[in-house]
């Protein structure tokens, strides 16, 4: 008799197909459990549906929750903590095998991992080697100062779009959060919220302000160009088409750019630049993790544990990284990939930089931030995006706009705090 367990996820397109394949592999690998994997159309819909189902007592056993929803579920008590589940079901997991930047993002401030990182990514800088060759360079900029020179040179060499970027809500991740992460800058007080719901946003007070001013300068000079769906071409498409020479985006795009890039184009990736004199810290993980929901039967939990155990296998990590742009989440998986020569092969070479970025500083480094633990993170990103749009589109003053974004963001945080009055962060 097989036990069925539901697994709801948000990915779509070919990723959804890959998830499905993984589920099939698991189902084939044993006969005790059958995991039914359903794409819910988007991260938001997936979370929303899971919540609705949970409130009605019809929740799936496993749900994928994106980084932005982490705090809500952590405070909900609606889940079966991952570490406890695995221990209860008799699996011995080495939690320290996870990369520091990943583990800290999903762990409590005490270091307990409540969910399983699933599809993980981090941003990289993509650069067009052909264009850089034209300005006599054979490496990507490591600092923003160097990047500024390169942009200028590229512009002078006749390139219309040295840096392609965008400032929508979805791009705050690489242009905001990750910038602050690698610079060891706080986004909010209380260690980015890890130490209390009363955290306050401070992104308007640090290095990010300078970065935005620089970006605006490049933009005004035509060295940085807005590329988005609305203009007809996203910056990723623009890079793949050879129209933009540098972009910042997730390692997840590595595969796509490989497949859609202009034939013959030489390009590479590098870690995000930092300002000169800054000590590089680890970047944050992006993507989503898998949560086990409370209120299910033991048999289902056993199935869930078996599933997690299955996808944690190094072979699965290899397969997953091969068919998607996502990265392995554990050292053991990474080592297996290295051993298999994964990172030497043409389409995959360079992705190891993502791991480097995620592990640039140790997890216990007091000067780096473990991640972001803020309520209403999506809305805060929207406020930041609105601030940036005011700056770039309406030519509003940088400091004023960022201050306002922070103030509005703080209101969101206060509402959140009030909502969970009396609750403690685990």
């Amino acid at each position: 008799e097989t036990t069925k367990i539901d697994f709801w996820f948000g990915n779509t397109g070919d990723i959804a197909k890959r998830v499905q394949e993984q589920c099939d592999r698991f189902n084939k690998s044993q006969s005790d459990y059958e995991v039914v994997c359903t794409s819910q159309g988007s991260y938001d819909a997936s979370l929303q549906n899971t919540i609705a189902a949970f409130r009605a007592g019809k929740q799936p056993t496993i749900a994928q929750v994106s980084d932005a929803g982490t705090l809500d579920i952590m405070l909900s008590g609606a889940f079966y903590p991952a570490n406890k589940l695995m221990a209860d079901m008799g699996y011995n997991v080495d939690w320290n095998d996870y990369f520091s930047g990943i583990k800290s993002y999903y762990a409590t401030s005490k270091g307990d991992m409540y969910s399983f990182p699933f599809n993980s990514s981090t941003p990289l800088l993509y650069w067009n080697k052909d264009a850089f060759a034209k300005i006599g360079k054979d490496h990507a900029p490591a600092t923003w100062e160097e990047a500024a020179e390169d942009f200028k040179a590229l512009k002078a060499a006749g390139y219309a779009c040295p840096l392609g970027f965008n400032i929508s809500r979805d791009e705050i991740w690489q242009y905001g959060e990750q910038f602050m992460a690698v610079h060891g800058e706080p986004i909010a007080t209380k260690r980015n919220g890890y130490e209390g719901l009363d955290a306050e946003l401070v992104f308007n007070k640090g290095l990010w302000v300078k970065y935005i001013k620089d970006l605006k300068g490049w933009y005004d000079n035509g060295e940085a160009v807005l590329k988005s769906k609305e203009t007809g071409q996203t910056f990723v498409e623009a890079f793949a088409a050879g129209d933009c020479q540098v972009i910042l985006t997730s390692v997840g795009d590595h595969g796509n750019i490989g497949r859609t890039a202009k034939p013959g184009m030489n390009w590479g990736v590098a870690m995000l630049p930092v300002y000169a004199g800054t000590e590089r810290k680890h970047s944050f993980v992006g993507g989503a993790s898998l949560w086990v929901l409370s209120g299910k039967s033991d048999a289902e939990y056993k199935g869930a544990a078996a599933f997690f155990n299955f996808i944690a296998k190094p072979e699965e990590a290899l397969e997953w990284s091969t068919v998607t742009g996502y990265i392995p989440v554990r050292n053991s998986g990474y080592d297996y990939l290295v051993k298999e020569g994964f990172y030497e092969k043409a389409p995959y070479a360079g992705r190891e930089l993502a791991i480097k970025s995620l592990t640039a500083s140790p997890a216990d480094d007091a000067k780096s931030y473990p991640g972001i633990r803020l309520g209403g993170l999506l809305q805060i990103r929207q406020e930041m995006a609105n601030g940036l749009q005011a700056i770039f589109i309406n030519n509003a003053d940088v400091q004023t706009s960022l201050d306002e974004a922070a103030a509005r963001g703080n209101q969101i945080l206060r509402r959140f705090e009030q909502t969970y009055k009396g609750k403690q962060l685990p």
Partner: protein
Amino acid sequence: MVERTPVFDAICQAILFLGLLIALVPFAIVIIAATHDIRTVNTVPMPLVPGRDLFANLAEAWQRADLGVKLFNSVLFATAVACGKVILSAMAAFSIVYFRFPGRSALFWAIFVTLMLPLEVRIVPTYAVAANALAPFQAILDTTGITWLVQRVSGIEVKLEWGLLNSYPGLILPLVATATGTFLYRQFYLTIPDELAEAAKMDGSGPVRFFVDMLLPLSRPNMIALFTIMFVWSWNQYLWPLLVTTDPKFGIAVTELRALIPSEFGLPDWNVAMAGTLIIMLPPLIVVILMQRWFVRGLISTEK
């Protein structure tokens, strides 16, 4: 009628043709996108000369989204919602227009207000109701103390339960519960000449017969319009079906289409997604074409 208005006709034709073009351009783009390979579909601007991968893309979309079963479910679901709306709205409007009981207009407004709050806003509690459609009644019994009373008197615990998740009623009923149709029928009924109702009454027909024998056939153009719109509308619903049907057995085509749309860092295979769109758009288009053939002019007094 003899009409000879070449200039006006030409203007009409020109505008209609323009309208036709404007209506078709987005479809053309979808079709062309579905013929390209992944690289071409992602070049900017996308070439307007069709590529050669249409069938490959269609096959890929069909297979990936398991469209055979899903299309069938979709047809069933959309037809049921559309029929449900067409019939229930006709009935409700009949009551509102043709009867004279107190509170009639309050009822109309009560139904009407359902237009004002989209499903997305109330989806969480709606799901809870779908999980047990009798929950509201249970709650009423609980708060009024009837549950307690029955329990005391008979020892039976009143527990009403009717779960609609993963069922056709669950898919269909909540989507039927809106006012568009009722309002449309109200507008139409108000234009029906009183003489017809009077003649029917003289012929001995009561309200039910009048409704079935007169109103329904007379509302045919409206009914067809409403059916068409509602079919298409339900066909394109995805949030609710997605939520109530976790069992792939009940899945519908559009949710599968959503799953075909490339994710953020997934492969941008818009060609496959658009091929899927193409397949999935076909049934509603067929419905539109079929329905227009049923449009019959002037049932109401084409007099001479």
